[in-house]
């Protein structure tokens, strides 16, 4: 049993030192040397931007650490303090998780990026010919249009591929029914973003019609992607807010969020992070470095930092 005894000894030693290590009261003036924990999610622009922001912090003399995290659950982690910042809070997809966490306390709204976001149903540009009248939503009322989007399991109706149910629940099916398109169209939930991109690639090869859920800024912007123009969004028009659901998605914010202790522990970094503001073009360029130029996320971040030194140096003053 020497192995078990050895392990017990190791546990004890580990615990003793862990207890010691929590005593880091020697706080210097300025930023703490504790690492800033930056979450990475599973889409390219976010990961690259995480490394870009990490690089900026490092240039400022901070320590950084990256942790893969789920994009919805991350706000709870920030609240508890497992993660320090979030740099892409999309209004339509994560607004609800974010505001819930905000109400519970422990997380701070740290300002908006310059980029505006749109998340809605749309189609790659080459599909336009299959449904004359797009991008106006009334074109969808035409049965001849719907029949170009039929799939084997759609029961003869046109099929729209919505993202995972996690993202906005029943919003799109409710909208389709509210607009009276329910007889011609059916909404299918994909299981992941991968499923959306696979559908996009497959539809292109096959040259068939497809309407999918997508967002901008995204790597698809480059190849041409148009969002359907639904009736404009007004506050309270969604069923969950008591409205009739006959409206599209809002022109949304892209926010930054931080753990409530961050400004106290890292005042310098927090100040820089507050000033950070990326534009749609910059975010698109980051995503394109990975998705189109096939660079790794780290390399893309390095290249972006090298190419845009004037941009981020300005935030550091």
């Amino acid at each position, binding site marked *: *049993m020497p192995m078990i005894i050895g*392990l017990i000894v190791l546990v004890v030693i*580990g615990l003793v*030192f*862990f207890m010691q*290590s929590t*005593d*880091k*009261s*020697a*706080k*210097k003036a300025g930023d*703490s*040397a504790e*690492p800033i924990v930056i979450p990475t999610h599973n*889409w*390219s622009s976010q*990961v690259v931007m995480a490394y870009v922001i990490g690089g900026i912090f490092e240039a400022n003399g901070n*320590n950084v650490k990256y*942790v*893969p*995290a*789920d*994009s*919805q*659950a*991350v706000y709870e982690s920030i609240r*508890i303090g*497992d*993660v320090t910042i979030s740099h892409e809070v999309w209004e339509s997809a994560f607004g609800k998780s974010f505001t819930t*966490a905000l109400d519970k306390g422990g997380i701070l709204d740290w300002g908006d990026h310059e980029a505006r976001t749109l998340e809605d149903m749309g189609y790659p540009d080459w599909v336009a010919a299959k449904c004359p009248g797009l991008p106006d939503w009334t074109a969808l009322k035409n049965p001849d249009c719907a029949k170009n989007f039929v*799939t*084997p*399991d759609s029961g003869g109706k046109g099929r729209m591929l919505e993202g*995972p*149910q*996690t993202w906005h*629940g*029943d919003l799109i*099916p409710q909208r389709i029914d509210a607009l009276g398109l329910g007889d011609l169209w059916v909404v299918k*939930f994909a*299981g*992941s973003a*991968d*499923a959306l*991109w*696979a*559908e996009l690639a*497959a539809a292109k*090869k096959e040259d068939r019609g497809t309407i999918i859920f997508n967002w901008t800024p995204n790597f698809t912007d480059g190849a041409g992607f148009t969002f359907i123009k639904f009736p404009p969004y007004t506050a309270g028009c969604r*069923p*969950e807010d008591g409205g009739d659901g006959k409206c599209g998605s809002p022109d949304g914010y892209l926010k930054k969020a931080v753990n409530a*202790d961050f400004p*106290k*522990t890292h005042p310098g970094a927090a100040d820089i992070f507050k000033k950070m503001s990326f534009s749609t073009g910059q975010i698109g360029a980051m995503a394109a470095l*990975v998705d189109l130029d*096939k660079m*790794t996320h*780290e*390399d893309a971040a390095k290249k972006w930092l090298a190419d845009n030194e004037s941009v981020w140096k300005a935030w550091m003053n």
Partner: protein
Amino acid sequence: MELLKKYPKLFQWLFLLIVFFALCFAIDVPETYKFIRGQAEFIKDPNQSTYILFGKEVRYYAFDNFWRLPPLLGWLPIWINDGLFFLLNEWMPMEFWDSATQEYKTRPLVLQISRNITAFMTFLIELIREILLGGVETIVAFTSWNFVSAYPWAKLPGLPWTIVAAGAAILAYKLSGKGLAIFAALVMIYISVFGQWKPSMQTLSFILVAAPLSFIFGLSLGVMAYKSKRVEKALYPILLVMQTMPQYAVLVPAMVLFGIGDHAAVIITMVVAIPPMILLTLIGLRGVSPEVIEAGKMSGCSNWQLLTEVLIPTARRDILIGVNQVIMVCFSMAVISAFIGAKGLGWNLLLALNQLNIGLALEAGLCISLIAILLDKMSLAWANKQTDYFGNLTFYQRYKNTIFFGGAVLIGAILAIFGSFFFKEGFNYLYEVPHNKGISTADFWNKGVDWIFDTFFVYIKAFNTWLITEVLQPMRALYLRMPAVATLVLVVGAGYIIGGIRSAFTVGGLTLFIALSPWWDRALVTTYMATFGVIISCTIGFIVGTLCQQNKYTTNFMLGVCDIFQTFPSFVYLIPVMMLFGVTDTSVLIAVIVYATIPATRYTIEGLRSVPAALHDAATMSGVTKLQRLFKIEFPLAFPHMMLGLNQTIVFALFMVIIGAFIGTEDLGQYILKALSDKAGGGKGLVLGICVAFIGLIFDNLIRTWVEKRKKHLGID
């Protein structure tokens, strides 16, 4: 009457089916009935009925009670959620001094404890990781971040890949010999040359923590269960449920309790890996014959000595199978745990898939399989190794391997230093081949998928349309058409006919739990996909297994293929399948069939192998042909064993149907996926997982009972 006496079971089955169909036809589909596609059960709607229990409001669509039972257990997930939330956020708040902000902070006790446990886990993981890759966290654990920032030299350097590769090969040589040493070296070189070194070592570092811990906990719990009836009784139901629970469902509560990161990955891996270890320890210890124990006692063993010197060595065979299972499970969790923050191959694989880079994902997936097989073989060799006691060895003979390893460290270090002069542009290939700077065959595989797509697309599409409209959709509709009462009667009746009143109660209870949960419709869809997958998998597995078993070499080849596919992350083939068959049930089912055929094949081969050779000879001497022998002797005798394979096939199929949620399904899996992102998802994820586990257990109970009876009847075992 003659017939009835001769085949009583047959008539019982017939009677059961008649009652079942009579019920199906007698109960009409209510007009308001509609399969709930979205999350309507969480939305307020005037058509819904409500009840309040334990202060929790449960909303649901009421139907005739024969058609769908009301969700009387609907409060359970909400209640678990609130309980968890209370435990983590409100129970026993305590004041803690936060040195970073220089103020006191209230933190609930459980949160603080769970964070302390995780800090320790993180320490272990980082220690191993930094020995392999280098870094500062270990030194930080003993000093502080300020110290590390002040002294840049204070960090572990990490081993160059040449040293680790040589070390692995020498260790393999010592444990088993040349064959394994060559395999170890090839695996390490493959990983390095393909630029997967860093993620592989990251994955390895959390597995090297999770696997030994699972082994220790599993073994000690197994011993405790062996010694005390009470512990065993308490553990048994948990073990059963955990065996059929989809790994994916464990993620949600784990994330709530332990947060995200590598430590959480270690914890869920342990949760999944410990049950089989306990079970196999228990089986092994039970198998130790009383004579052996007597002999131990007579030689004056103390309790501890009896355990370590007598019981465990004797039960070694089963404990070893347990170790093998632990390692396999750890690697099968490598990708799934990436969802809650594990770094390494799993995360890279998910990122590659997100860019539809199938080739890159394939390479990462292959690394996982290869390391798993290597570790598995090494642990087996280690356990099987006999200690040699030779007195008169020279210094060289005794410390041969240590000397070689020392030499390898020296050469590796020199090479790495030499490399740092040679490779100027920042990548020292003799130290570590950076990620994605190695060779890659990704383009080849991606082109391969494109080629398949372009060439076979027309046929695939025709087949897909036919399958969906003619087979899958009607099948799904049939399952949903079953009134809940009819399903209950069918399951209870089957339990009664197969295993008597006891079995009938067990399976009836399990079914009732699902029927009373808010997700009966979803469970039916899960069952429909699992049934279809199991039928096809078993057919393929049975035929392939039987054919391969005819020859020794094909047998070994097939078992090797099974090994690779079992550890190969299924996510990799989800994407190409999805491109070919679209976001449809077909895609999910193909993934299910690929995965579930493994146990079907394996158990067919092992079942046929287990037929005693003496019987073969006896049969041949009585002059039967090969075919006759196969059908009259081998199949009947191997059948009970093959049925256990069916059992495993069902479990595998259920796992994969749940993972199919990533393609897009409308079953329990979709809600489990949803629970993962839901802040209040802990309870839902757990109850959904239990529902899936119960589906598996219903079949498990029926098959096991039948197998036992059949074995008694055949006089084997």
